[in-house]
């Protein structure tokens, strides 16, 4: 057990840190879920596509574009990229089963990862700051000692997550597009029979996921302070773990899964000093294993029944 167990500032710091990271995982998990819901595929290149988007933001801000306009442009660009990749690369492989699609996303992973490194170099660059003040400015809550404070980034990331969830909810529940998307997610064949353009809904899912990923990567970069071509490598694993935890086909599940994972990964090493070092990947692995073995559909997912 950690000696700081009865220190409120320490616990609160763990809590906010966990929630901040958790919100970032939730964003990546959301992207994975949005792809999965309609197409039943996992895009393993999601993280790399997000890195590409974040670098687009970086490039635009470097050329003097205000950061949020840059994010808006990158948002649209990555939407187009995601939708285009679905239509051009993934769709033709659709009927060949799961494995070729996984391979195609892995190929994307390789190409985008190396492409970003070729274009922007392998050295970390200064991250764009979507949330002004970033990691320096903070709100002091407990003056301490030890002090407890919340950085603007933490607040901003959580605010972005809430805003995005609200926006997604409006988009999926209140618009005709969202209705079509949900129909395809619920039953592909029936939706097709009802005249919903299933293919376009796949593209929509991929596009919105890529756009979300871009936002996530920009925030991940700001939280970390730097951006490099491997920024999203491990985050993808956390996003996958969060999506597994919440259920691969559940939007609220992705959010809850991300936050819970973030908290687990903050509190487990924070309170129990069993092993030294940053073993967050191992924790994520354990979470994935436990969830898949105990409750494969996740916390909020629908259980798939297979007819044999």
């Amino acid at each position, binding site marked *: 057990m950690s000696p700081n167990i009865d220190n409120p500032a320490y616990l609160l710091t763990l809590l906010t840190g966990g929630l901040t990271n958790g919100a970032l995982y939730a964003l990546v998990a959301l992207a994975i879920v949005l792809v999965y819901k309609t197409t039943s595929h996992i895009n393993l290149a999601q993280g790399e596509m997000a890195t590409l988007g974040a670098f687009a933001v970086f490039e635009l801000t470097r050329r003097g574009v205000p950061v949020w306009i840059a994010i808006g442009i990158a948002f649209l660009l990555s939407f187009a990229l995601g939708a285009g990749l679905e239509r051009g690369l993934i769709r033709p492989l659709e009927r060949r089963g799961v494995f070729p699609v996984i391979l195609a996303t892995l190929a994307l992973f*390789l190409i985008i990862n190396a492409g970003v490194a*070729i274009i922007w170099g392998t050295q970390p660059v200064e991250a764009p700051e979507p949330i002004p003040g970033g990691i320096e400015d903070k709100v002091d809550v407990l003056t301490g000692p030890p002090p407890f404070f919340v950085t603007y980034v933490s607040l901003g990331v959580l605010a972005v997550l809430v805003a995005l969830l609200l926006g997604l909810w409006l988009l999926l529940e209140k618009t005709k597009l969202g209705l079509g998307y949900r129909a395809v997610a619920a039953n592909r064949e029936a939706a097709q029979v009802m005249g919903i353009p299933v293919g376009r809904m796949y593209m929509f899912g991929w596009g919105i996921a890529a756009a979300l990923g871009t936002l996530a990567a920009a925030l991940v970069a700001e939280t970390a302070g730097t951006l490099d071509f491997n920024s999203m490598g491990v985050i993808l694993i956390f996003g996958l773990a969060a999506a597994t935890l919440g259920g691969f086909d559940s939007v609220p599940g992705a959010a809850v899964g991300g936050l819970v994972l973030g908290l687990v990964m903050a509190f487990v090493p924070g309170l129990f000093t069993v092993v030294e070092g940053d073993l967050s990947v191992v924790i994520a692995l354990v979470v994935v294993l436990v969830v898949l073995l105990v409750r494969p559909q996740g916390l909020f997912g629908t259980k798939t029944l297979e007819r044999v």
Partner: protein
Amino acid sequence: MKTRVVLEGSRAHRLWQGAGLALAVLVALALPLLSSDFRIGQFSLVIAYAVAVLGLNLVTGFTGQVSLGHGAFFGLGAYTTAILVTDHGWAWAATVPVAALLGLALGFVVGIPALRLHGLYLAVITLAVGVAFPVVVSQPVGLALGTGGVAGKTVQVSWDKPAWFGLDVSDRGWTFIVMAAIAGVLFWLATGLVRSRMGRAMVALRDNGTAAAIAGIWPAEVKTVAFAISALYGAVGGCLYLLTTPIVSPATVGFTITLLFITAMVLGGAATVSGAWIGGIAMVFLPYYTAEWAGQIPVLRELTDQPGLFANVIYGLILIVFIYFVPAGLVPLLTRLRTRFLVIVPPEAAAGPTPSGSDTTPGAPDGGLAGPSPAIGGPVTAAGDHDLSHDPGPPARAMAPPRGSSQEERT
């Protein structure tokens, strides 16, 4: 050229196989005689990678289980050998069984989730294992085991050519010959495995899991064993790797090498044994020549100081092209090329069903398995190709008795 038809198992077939095997041995001996030490090092690396890729072929190509963590098995083997040799003064050869057993155990453990999960979920689990491995290695817990952290673990294994060996090869050349011999045995065993009862069960499980289970195959056993054997090959590949490279670091065994293994597997042919050689060759020579070419083109040279990155782009493109146009890989393509002038038919196809030899090759539905000698007539791209393609000869004979008996058991 006139097409020859040869009966499988006939004397003519054995002669072809014998000739191929002899050629393979000849090439394995000639390479170190004729090449510089640098080239020999590259060919040695081909062997190490080919063995690891073969492991991936067995679990993914033959058994149909997605494995995105093969780099972890490779790394496990490499680190086991490195730690035992450097810190504990073991001989390299003594570390191989340890690494193989550890690989077997880890593969078995990773295979357990495969019992309940398939497809995407299995991909997520294995991916997490593959990503977690290099992280664990570079953390304090890994350091305590002697992994050397982020910087990696150095290891010096150098062999002197023994006096009794008559050929005038360098020490590196001798190492290459030993590695080739080890790889020969491993490929021979793998060929036997895929033709054995277990191999047929693996393929059946891949093609239709439910039907296989109904036919009396126990999926749990086959899947875990397939993962375990796959990991064993990966680990031994890692051991062999250390004979060519004096250091292993978290960066070498990261997710990138898993991706390269997968590309290599698809390139050669996932459901083939000999395809692993093509994969291994690509893994070594593709980045090498890409970097060289990229260094010569001014536009590309100015883009980045790391021309190796272009190789990754090319890997990705190859992967996409192959998924789309050559999903079965190169080996079936070469086999088809060979059938233009040499067709090998199983006895029953020529003379109707016979009581004794009623077995068919458990290949992919489209004949994707290497079959007995895929590259006899195919274009010879490199020596390694031959090494394996003719190995199937002996195992066919060696496995014959168990095959017969298993047939009887079934009927």
